């Protein structure tokens, strides 16, 4: 019996993980289907767009600014080892739009938005507001989940685009003021080596990350346990799962988009 215990424990963990994966997948599919089917709650969507998009701009912008600057310094220092300092503008631009802009922007939005969605919906659940919605003939998936998921899926690519621009600008500032690059040459090298798909792939990543962030926030909020501890746990799980899924999705998308 004792020999089988580790196997039973492992099996329990695997089954539990598969069950969670199944529940999350069903939830995500339901969320997506509710986005496409009426009724549509425009006011809730616009409110979510403001909360997720507009109010995330400062944190995404600051993250991108400092990341772009640090990236320029690192590439300059690394490039100096084999006399390739001139690649700074192009590598900063490509690095920002392909990887760092979407991933860091996504992680910052995950921290800010997934937690806020999970806490809000979780609190609504424990105070019976979700039950109240149902008794008022309103589907919580349509009223609470669909507007947030749609708003995040649309807003995060825009945030990524803004973050990319600010990040490249951060690299430019450091390049011109600290590393003595010629301003016109820096800009020319940035533009010349950047391709449309570099930017496009980052925006697609942003949309996937936005969807993931909102789904995880809503999923954990809707499954929140009772009391402050339940809401706190839902919030933590939303941020952790959204962050891990962003990093995993980023690898998969990079493989799909750029593997030779």
């Amino acid at each position, binding site marked *: 019996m004792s020999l089988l215990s580790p196997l039973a424990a492992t099996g329990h963990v695997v089954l539990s993980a598969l069950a969670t994966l199944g529940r999350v997948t069903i939830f995500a599919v339901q969320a997506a289907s509710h986005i496409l089917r009426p*009724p549509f709650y425009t006011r809730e969507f616009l409110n979510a767009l403001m909360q997720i998009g507009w109010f995330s701009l400062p944190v995404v912008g600051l993250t991108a600014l400092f990341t772009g600057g640090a990236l320029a310094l690192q590439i300059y220092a690394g490039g100096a080892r084999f006399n390739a300092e001139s690649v700074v503008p192009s590598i900063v631009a490509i690095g920002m739009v392909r990887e760092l802009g979407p991933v860091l922007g996504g992680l910052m939005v995950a921290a800010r938005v997934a937690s806020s969605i999970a806490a809000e919906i979780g609190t*609504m659940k424990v105070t019976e*507001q979700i039950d*109240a919605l*149902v*008794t*008022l*003939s*309103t589907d919580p998936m349509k009223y609470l989940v669909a507007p947030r998921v749609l708003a995040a899926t649309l807003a995060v690519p825009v945030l990524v685009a803004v973050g990319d621009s600010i990040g490249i600008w951060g690299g430019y500032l450091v390049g011109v003021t600290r590393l003595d690059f010629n301003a016109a040459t820096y800009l020319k090298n940035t533009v010349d080596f950047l391709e449309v798909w570099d930017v496009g792939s980052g925006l697609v990543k942003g949309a996937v990350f936005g969807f993931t962030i909102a789904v995880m926030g809503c999923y954990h909020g809707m499954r929140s346990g009772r009391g402050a501890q339940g809401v706190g746990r839902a919030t933590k799980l939303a941020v952790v799962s959204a962050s891990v899924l962003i990093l995993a999705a980023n690898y998969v998308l990079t493989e799909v988009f750029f593997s030779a």
Partner: protein
Amino acid sequence: MIDLQGIEKAFGSNRVLRGVDLEIGTGTSMVIIGGSGTGKSVLLKCILGLVAPDAGTIRLDGHDVTRAPREEFLARFGMLFQGGALFDSLPVWHNVAFRLLRGAHRRPKAEAREIAVDKLRRVGLKPEVADLYPAELSGGMQKRVGLARAIAAEPEIIFFDEPTTGLDPIMAGVINELIREIVTEMGATAMTITHDMSSVRAIADHVAMLHDGVIQWTGPIAEMDATPDPYVQQFIHGRAEGPIEAVR
């Protein structure tokens, strides 16, 4: 008429409802009493479809609604939740007129607001309250707003979940009186769950005692005090000794 037959519900190994049979006549006010944790709220949520019963049937005016689509069914209901369950992000009048601003009952915004203010007045709140947010209200005011929301769409059936919990005795009396008046003037069927005996005496036409997952006794309020049922007697007199274990 609401007719419950053999309703059962378990959460894991905990069998909360073990076969509840109960009839609530049209236009009557049924109060379900029972100790904390005896399944009163679960029974109410089973009727509303918020919790799926494991067995049994729920009939509304003769139609089996146990697994029927809920939207049409819920359109006939109003519900006052224990904690009010008001939407924090919406002003009071939006809460009251929630059903009137969307779905089948949709009205123009100005008309919906007018109805909301009228319902707030009906529960003793001034029109100025309409533009406040729930967090700005006292517990008693939140209950009144919850009551106004429950009656806003003129429902045929109203459920009250512990309507006086957390209120001082005077405010509890006010809420009890309001519920009785509103149910009478609307001619609605009402179902209240409570363990507050002052609520029972103020609101009930009929009383049902839920214990151990079944209805132990049911009858008119006038017969409650005289019934020899030991469960009812222990409960209404608040005795520690009797068939109901004090420690559950």
